[in-house]
């Protein structure tokens, strides 16, 4: 077995009286594609929000790359190597595709204020060096034609792709994808699946994926976690989970 990248231990998250996540534990191995599935309201997105520091769980710990922490700010998560995309696209909609992906390089840029003011030497070189990286990502995602367009005007499928590009620009160790294929047609889904597999194989990025399309999940994922009403009801290989009675009950309901 390969080494462990992320370990979620007994995490419980409450909002007032509502328990969104209850005592969930699972791990993500380095280099795998790990799917998180479950019916609506199962706590999948909350789980991602806990992992990248938007929500602070009341109980439990999260160990990322051997470091255990309970509270973490989102920008600290970004600095430690966690990137994500959102269920409903959260791009900087007035900025161009280029600038959106450039924004993902913010952490790699550290030239000071004075040098930026005059845009000379170091600041300019840094900008150009990062631009090269960004162009590589643009080529990889096959979106050079929309480089200059404000993303707010792009069709939905392309926006999702730009958002993936922006997350990739961070060169993350762990990439969290929240429903990357929601609302896409078959062709767009196939494209997106190809990109996800390529990212995983070419860059060796570990991916945690929330997705409702079971076909996609079964094809892409190495292992699957199933949540229902904030509890973990299944964990294992796609085929095992598919055959699990608890999972089937959660999706189809049980006769009363």
């Amino acid at each position, binding site marked *: 077995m390969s080494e462990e990248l992320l370990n979620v231990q007994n995490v419980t998250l409450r909002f007032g009286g509502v328990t969104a996540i209850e005592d969930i534990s699972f791990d993500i191995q380095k280099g795998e594609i790990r799917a998180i599935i479950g019916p609506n309201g199962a706590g999948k997105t909350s789980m991602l929000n806990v992992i*990248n520091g*938007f929500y602070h769980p009341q109980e439990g710990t999260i160990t990322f790359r051997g470091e255990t922490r309970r509270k973490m*700010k*989102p*920008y600290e*998560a*970004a*600095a430690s190597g966690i*990137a*994500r995309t*959102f269920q409903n696209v*959260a*791009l*900087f*909609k*007035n*900025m161009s595709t280029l*600038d959106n992906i*450039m*924004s*993902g390089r*913010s*952490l790699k*840029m550290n*030239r000071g*204020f004075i040098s*930026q*003011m*005059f*845009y000379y030497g170091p*600041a*300019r070189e*840094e*900008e*150009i060096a990062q*631009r*090269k990286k960004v162009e590589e990502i643009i080529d990889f995602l096959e979106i050079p034609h929309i480089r200059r367009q404000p993303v707010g005007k792009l069709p939905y499928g392309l926006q999702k792709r730009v958002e993936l590009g*922006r997350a990739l620009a*961070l060169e993350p160790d762990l990439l969290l994808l929240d429903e990357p294929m929601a609302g896409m047609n078959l062709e767009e889904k196939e494209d997106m699946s190809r990109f996800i597999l390529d990212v995983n194989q070419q860059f060796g990025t570990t991916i945690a994926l929330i997705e409702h399309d079971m076909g996609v999940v079964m094809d892409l994922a190495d292992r699957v976690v199933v949540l229902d009403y904030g509890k973990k009801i299944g964990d294992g290989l796609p085929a095992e989970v598919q055959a699990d009675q608890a999972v089937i009950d959660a999706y189809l309901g049980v006769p009363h």
Partner: protein
Amino acid sequence: MFYREAGQFKTSYKSDQAIFPILQDRIGLGLIVAIALIGIPFIATDGFLNSIMIPFLILALAAIGLNILTGYCGQLSLGTGAFMGVGAYSCYKLATIFPDVTILVHILLSGFFAAAAGVIFGLPSLRIKGLYLAITTLAAQFFLEWMFVRWGWLFNYNESGAIQNVPQKLFGVQITGAAADPVTRYLVVLSIVVFLTWIASNIIRGRIGRSWMMIRDMDIAAELMGIKPLNAKLSAFAVSSYFCGVAGALMVFFWLGSAEADVFNINLSFQVLFMVIIGGMGSLIGSFMGAAFIFVLPVVIRTIPRVLGLDIGGATVEHVSTMAIGALIVLFLIVEPHGLARLWQIGKEKLRNWPFPYG
């Protein structure tokens, strides 16, 4: 027809990232600078410089300041007038405490006091957004204005309670004070405004400017890209207030000659805000257009009856021009809610595709 980029190939990212990547834009800018620098000083009358060009440039600088905060970083502020006042009063104090140092240094330093005030009153932006933030910046407006009146040390306890410009020379030429030639004052203001506009455009296209726009467009995602909201918002407040502070100092020393606290009241804040809205949020050129629309257009409209030789009373002209400008503002906002800068952009796009309707 003339505005085409066909044949202009960029072979390096360096040339692609230039401020004006299109040749025609560079020529246009060169022409404007040449007219501003050589043409206007030769042909303009003192009155034109004093009542149109100098205030236009100064208010455009203030509009750039507010645009950095509101247009680029998305933080609404109604404290612009007060931050300009901080710049003006600190410039006055510096000039009277160190009379031997050139006024240009004082003016550029006074912006830092305004920046400090901006950061302090920008702290609420870490918790509140939008209109509610605008209300908290009103606190800056009222508190600072009160301070300008009550704290005698600021105006050296003089009887009138006003601050005056301090006559100064640079290389033997009088640049401030009643004896200074309007052309000299105009050229000093022009150089400072052009220099600071260039600085602003550099900051905006780099990492810091991007971090502001990220906060503006989607603060949650910005944090996930590793942006610390504290740094981004407060740096926007600081840079924005710096520009406003310098504009305030220029206003007293190169335009009005003397000013009371009342000059920096909320009307000034609103005036600058309207310039930003009419000119275009998030556009430097829009700040100039907005300043021209809100400040210069009324002056021009008021002179129309006199130029045409119509005998209309001064009060009537005043009322009619106010109504005309009100109507024009409404009209422009209906035609293009994103401001004059967007109209300009659309115009350029159309020119590029001409004679075809779209490219």
